[in-house]
């Protein structure tokens, strides 16, 4: 099913929880709503589900305005962070409840329950109560319950955030595969950027109820349109510096202060501003240590992160984070040279916080 969200707005009393969001979701697409907690993701999802009434704007399913449809007429399935299973019913009853309401024959309920339960790997648990299941099993039941009526739209509200890290990773893959196999249009709310980046076809980044960007993961990562996105996306987070842009002998430099400066390549030519103060961003993995030339720095801190060591040091007046191979065995106080891969650098206007490279 195709979903269109037009100028969708929600106010609770005085506060604006969702501020005029516009989105289109293609049939079969997997879209993630990504943003920090409290930014309005759940509110948006609940408006799409028909639980909240929009203050303004429209929701269209396959071109049809559904603003005034109650949830039961929207043909959706939803998975909640809290699982929201019915504790007084068995797993079988939980799974088949949507079919019971639709007055489906008992035989069909049994068959479907078995099918969905096997798909979710909970076939042996049908007689239990939700209280007797582990968190991961409960989440599978919740997912099964959402799937059993073959909805045309699946909504997920942070479904994995109550699970432990290992289970989260495996469930991530399962949900993604299931969605692709079934081809159901899905909206997946999360505050975890890794979930969004690994699972979604497109990501809607939301901040304070405002849509910041709506694009595919790669674009989001490589071409952040706002300072917020640059800070929010990527792990470890992007380094941000206050730099001064200066042209000298036909070349453009970013001055880090204390004499440290970096040449800006032709590919990163700024749109508007030619000289003056801007924010420069560069991801830790795009700063390379141990080269022959480059900016010299003294290591202030080493944080082992498993595959890499995260190093903190100072360049100019700013703190720099970058990744090195643990084999280098760098220690606090060591001096090394850093080469900034300026082909990957980002620039933002200090006032508007908009990118100076992309729009």
């Amino acid at each position: 099913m195709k979903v269109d969200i037009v100028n969708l707005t929600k106010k609770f009393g005085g506060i604006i929880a969702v501020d005029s969001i516009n989105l289109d979701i293609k049939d079969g697409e997997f879209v993630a709503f990504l943003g920090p907690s409290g930014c309005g993701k759940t509110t948006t999802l609940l408006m799409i589900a028909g639980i909240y009434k929009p203050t303004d704007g429209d929701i269209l399913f396959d071109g049809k305005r559904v603003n005034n449809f109650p949830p039961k007429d929207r043909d959706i399935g939803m998975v909640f962070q809290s699982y929201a299973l019915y504790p007084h019913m068995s797993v079988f009853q939980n799974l088949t409840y949507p079919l019971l309401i639709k007055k489906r024959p008992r035989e069909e309920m049994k068959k479907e329950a078995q099918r969905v339960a096997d798909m979710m790997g909970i076939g042996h648990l049908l007689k239990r109560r939700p209280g007797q299941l582990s968190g991961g099993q409960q989440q599978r039941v919740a997912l099964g319950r959402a799937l059993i009526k073959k909805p045309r739209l699946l909504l997920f509200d942070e479904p994995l955030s109550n699970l432990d890290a290992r289970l989260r990773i495996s469930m991530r893959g399962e949900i993604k595969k299931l969605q692709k196999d079934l081809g159901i249009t899905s909206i997946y709310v999360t505050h975890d950027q890794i979930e969004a980046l690994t699972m979604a076809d497109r990501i809607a980044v939301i901040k304070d109820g405002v849509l910041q960007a709506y694009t595919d993961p790669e674009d989001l990562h490589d071409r952040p349109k706002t300072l917020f996105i640059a800070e929010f996306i990527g792990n470890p987070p992007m380094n941000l510096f206050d730099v001064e842009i200066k042209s000298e002998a036909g070349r453009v430099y970013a001055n880090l202060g204390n004499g440290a400066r970096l040449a800006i390549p032709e590919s990163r030519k700024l749109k508007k501003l030619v000289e003056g103060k801007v924010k420069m961003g560069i991801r830790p993995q795009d700063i390379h240590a141990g080269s022959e030339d480059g900016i010299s720095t003294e290591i202030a801190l080493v944080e082992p992160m498993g595959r890499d060591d995260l190093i903190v040091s100072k360049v100019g007046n700013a703190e720099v984070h970058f990744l090195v191979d643990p084999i280098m065995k760098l220690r606090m106080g060591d001096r090394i040279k850093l080469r900034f891969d300026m082909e990957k650098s980002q620039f933002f206007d200090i006032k508007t916080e908009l990118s100076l490279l992309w729009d």
Partner: protein
Amino acid sequence: MTEKTTGGGGKYDWFWFLLPALILVVIFFFLPIIITFFISGTNMSTATGFQNWKWIGLKNYQRISSHPETLEHLWLTVKYVAFTLVFFNLGMSLVIALLTTHISRGVGFLFRAVWLLPRITPVVVYVMMWRFIAADAPYGILNQIIIKPLGLKTANWLPMAPFLFIVLVNGFIGASFGMILFSSAIESIPKDLMMASLVDGSSYLQRIRYLIIPHLRWPLLFVTTFQTLSLMTSFEQILVLTDGAYNTEVWALWAYHKALSTYSGNLQWGFGTALAAILVTIGIVMAVIYMRYFKFEELVQEPKIETQ
């Protein structure tokens, strides 16, 4: 029932859910309030019947103000409310709350459970116990275990000290209300505050004065206002204990007797409802005041489902 009306929209679900309660509240709260004030403006009585009564305006209220018994009933009611409130609903309940929270948890809980018994015991059974406590020698418990051993003159104590007994009978029920509120308030005082004052070396009495009582400000105010109102208007226990004999006819019982007591022959509905109307007015005013002052807003959360 709502299945049909909901169909797609179900915009008026809330109405169907509220309807039964609404009907009952209208019939048994609103209508009676109106009736009370209305009949209090008539001369309706068994003499006039339901047909031949006349509208007499405020005459019943004038009669109340000039009635020779009015002051008596009023004074008795004030005394009764004040004594029961001070000695039991506040005094005794505070003492029990302090004592039961001071001793071991289990035993404290047991004593509080015993104090709740009068509240759940059927009223006639409960009053029967008091009647036997007061009964004449050689049967009555009071005579048998206190008066006689002390060599004093035995008696049937109910007619001898009727006021004491109406206070006791109501007080032993009323005390449990404050007891519950006070003891849970005391138990919610942070442990480290209690510890700190122990370390300071303050005595238990000092702790009561400077730590516990200040914590009980709201419950104390709540119990005082709530119980004043219910003492002022309740008469069931007195009705069973003395039926108003021996000068124990409090205002509410007076009204009840005038309007409904089948013994007096001529029921004065107009006059009786006028007596009741005064209590109803006080009740409405005080109930509205509570609602204002006792954190109503905090108790109300907005529904997090807006679908209809």
